């Protein structure tokens, strides 16, 4: 067994957590041509509302919403010019905000980039999503690709790629994640820059706030200085959920230091065990051994009522796409019951939950909700109802104390 921190979830002793990653028409490049797909509605609120409402009907923990400052592309160095695949996205934070009033329980975790944006803006946007949703907000932290630099014109046009194994590429990745780490630190400080009870509305002393309970954050780092305080009162969760996807040591270390959930992409139980061990070790090293940090497995799911049916769907999609389906994450093709077997097996290796990426929307989301969730409930590992609680609470994360709060007053 990997060294597991005392309060970190251990296999089987906690409920399984399930999230769904929403993106366009689904994660398969030919998903948009499926009979149930709604490719002409991808840029409407109704489409997103329907997806998230479906996810909520399956009592899922949360949805993530993908985003980026560059067009989807089969190439890493810029747009591929293809017109036969879904391209384009709406701002994920605003999609999540648009859906918040239409849902009650499900967590909303949009992607927001750390490379070209302002920590002050992102922190207040996520804090506001938390206010608007009543404590259901999270953030999928993402660093930009170099191809996005000219969109902002404030950094040199870069040529290195994440996938290179050159020293330049490694330095680039280190740097981007170091900036992301500072960015998350600033956001977390800004969320704490108001103590919970700063607003006093004391008519007798003509004071709306107690200014002693507001704090500057005075961050001074390599990429930015931010003074604070923020302009948004502390979010209902105190600290909205911070999550990030990683494929290697650099992001794992960032996650271990700064996140509440790391999404990883192990392809089998052994890899899962190794990834969890690496992240737990980094967590100890970061001095967070006592805190709960989730490690979720990302899995692309393509489901069918029988294995043959799932395989037939996969074949049809591959034919339409004109090439085999590949992904950074493992691709599961099979029945809900087989998927449940796999998820539980990898969970014994230390994963505490999953972020499922539906190959086709809404089909595979509906299969998750209609077949996988009931199967997991039959096995006694998934909730049968939502408790009225914040997203953090659902994930077993405490509402953090405020780093600036003075104890006695």
């Amino acid at each position, binding site marked *: 067994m990997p060294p597991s921190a005392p309060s970190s979830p251990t296999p089987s002793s906690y409920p399984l957590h399930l999230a769904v990653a929403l993106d366009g028409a689904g994660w398969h490049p030919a998903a*948009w*041509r499926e009979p149930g*797909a709604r*490719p*002409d509605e991808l*840029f*409407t*609120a109704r489409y997103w*509302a329907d997806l998230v409402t479906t996810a909520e009907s399956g009592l899922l923990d949360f949805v993530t919403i993908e985003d*980026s*400052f*560059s*067009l989807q592309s089969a190439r890493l160095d810029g*747009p591929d*010019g293809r*017109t*036969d*695949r879904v*391209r*384009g*996205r*709406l*701002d994920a*934070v*605003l*999609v999540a*905000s*648009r859906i*918040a*009033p239409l849902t009650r329980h499900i967590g909303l975790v949009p992607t927001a980039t750390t490379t*070209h*944006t*302002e920590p*002050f*803006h992102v922190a*207040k*946007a996520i*804090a*506001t*999503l938390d*206010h*608007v949703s009543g404590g259901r907000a999270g953030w999928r932290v993402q660093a930009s690709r170099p191809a996005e630099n*000219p969109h*902002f*014109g*404030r950094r040199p046009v870069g040529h290195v790629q994440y996938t290179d194994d050159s020293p330049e590429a490694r330095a680039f990745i280190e740097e981007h994640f170091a900036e992301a780490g500072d960015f998350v630190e600033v956001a977390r400080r800004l969320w704490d820059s108001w103590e919970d009870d700063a607003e006093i509305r004391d008519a007798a002393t*003509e*004071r*709306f*706030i107690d*200014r002693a309970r*507001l704090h500057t954050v005075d961050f001074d780092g390599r*990429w*930015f*200085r*931010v*003074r604070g*305080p923020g*302009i*948004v009162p502390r979010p209902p969760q105190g600290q909205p959920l911070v999550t990030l996807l990683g494929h290697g040591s650099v992001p794992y270390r960032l996650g271990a230091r700064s996140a509440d959930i790391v999404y990883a992409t192990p392809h089998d139980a052994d890899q899962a065990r190794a990834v969890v061990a690496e992240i737990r070790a980094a967590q100890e090293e970061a001095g967070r051994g006592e805190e709960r940090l989730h490690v979720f497995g990302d899995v692309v799911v393509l489901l069918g009522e029988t294995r043959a049916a799932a395989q037939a769907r996969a074949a049809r999609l591959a034919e339409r796409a004109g090439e085999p389906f590949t992904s950074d994450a493992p691709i599961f093709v099979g029945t809900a019951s087989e998927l449940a077997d796999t998820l539980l097996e990898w969970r014994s290796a230390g994963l505490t939950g999953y972020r499922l990426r539906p190959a086709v929307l809404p089909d595979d989301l509906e299969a998750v909700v209609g077949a996988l969730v009931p199967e997991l409930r039959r096995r006694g590992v998934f909730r049968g109802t939502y408790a009225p609680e914040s997203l953090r609470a659902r994930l077993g994360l405490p509402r953090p104390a405020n780093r600036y709060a003075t104890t006695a007053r």
Partner: protein
Amino acid sequence: MTESARPRKRIILGAFLSGVNHHTVWSAPEAGSQIAFSSFEHLARTAERGKFDFFFLAEGLALRERSGRVFDQDVVGRPDTLPVLAALAAVTEHLGLVGTLNTTFNEPYELARQLGSLDHLSGGRAGWNVVTSFDAFTGQNFRRGGYLHRDDRYVRADEFLAATHRLWDAWGEEAIVADKESGRFLRRPEDGTELGAFSFQGDQFDISGHFTTPRPPQGRPVILQAGVSPGGRDFAVRRSDAIFSPYRHLDEAQEFYRDIQRRAALAGRAPGEVKILPSASFVLGDTEADAVERHRHIARQQVTGQTAQILLEAVWNRDLSGYDPDGPLPDIDPDPEGPPVIQGRARLHQDAHQTVAEWRALAEAHDYSLRELALHVFGRTDFVGTPRQVADLIDAFVQNDGSDGFILGSHLTPTGLDEFVDRVVPLLQERGALRTEYTGTTLRDNLGL
């Protein structure tokens, strides 16, 4: 005077959630949260019930400070504009959603995406009130700090808008084909360029690449502008559909109106194409005497002794906390060149010495104390009276070209607009000055643009 033969102008109305300013009476027992979404939802639904054109939010990117200490006497704190507007799109159908957003501490690519997204998510109801605050104090919250010189604020704003238009146009009109049969998802632009390709070079921006968001349903979200310097006015007539103006007295408002019409004509805009919308407030009563008494009570809650000192400090630029609000005006001279005493509030660029001289004369003539002077200058409500009187005043102001409508705030969050919608709106509708039903679906439709 003869009535002009032109048809009655239809009054444009925006609703404004008063938050961070001295107009908001937070101490009233019925005052609600300025943060909870339910407050925004209540006000937006009320405005839509009253067939208003749009909902409006102001912006402040740093907490205001007085002599280095955060203001504590007014409402402090507000949620982020764009997420609130996106959420309001879920609980309204017709109401435009206008956010104040600054061109100095944003980048075109990101903001064009956000506004384009809001337009998609609201079915074409997004609007942007462009402001140019550039101060170094606010800059301390941002990567680049207070990098922009005051003289460059509209240079940047102008380039920002030009770049933003290019981004909104980067996808062709009907770029999404989504034909499952043929397998064609996108149509390339007619001119053979790559989908989403854009490029803009100027003094402030040198950007190029590919935009990720399809053309907004309105083509371009509606542009408002707030800022009345000559540079601001020229920017407005070049770039905006409407101006959020501070002129609320009929004579100065008419002068501003004429000036904008003149500048707009020079810029090649058609008459009436640039709408003018002052911010305004109201107090209603069953009788005129009731309304006046209610107003007196509200004004004294808005302009407390401490608030009076702070309002005057903004012009004096000196710490006036030692001056008795019930005593005479400070006898010292203003110090406009000194380090700012009040930070984080849009600066009034006026001649401090002249303003102080005028105030001294006013105080002398009426025997005003410091607070009474502040009440006289800042404690004013534009429309005070019975519902019928207020309807008459609003209509007359618009028909006499003081403006094309108003952005209405109230001293009470979030229920202050209720009585206006219940009691004044029907009177304005009766005389044909306000719509009784929405006829279109977009903010452009609402404004007749």
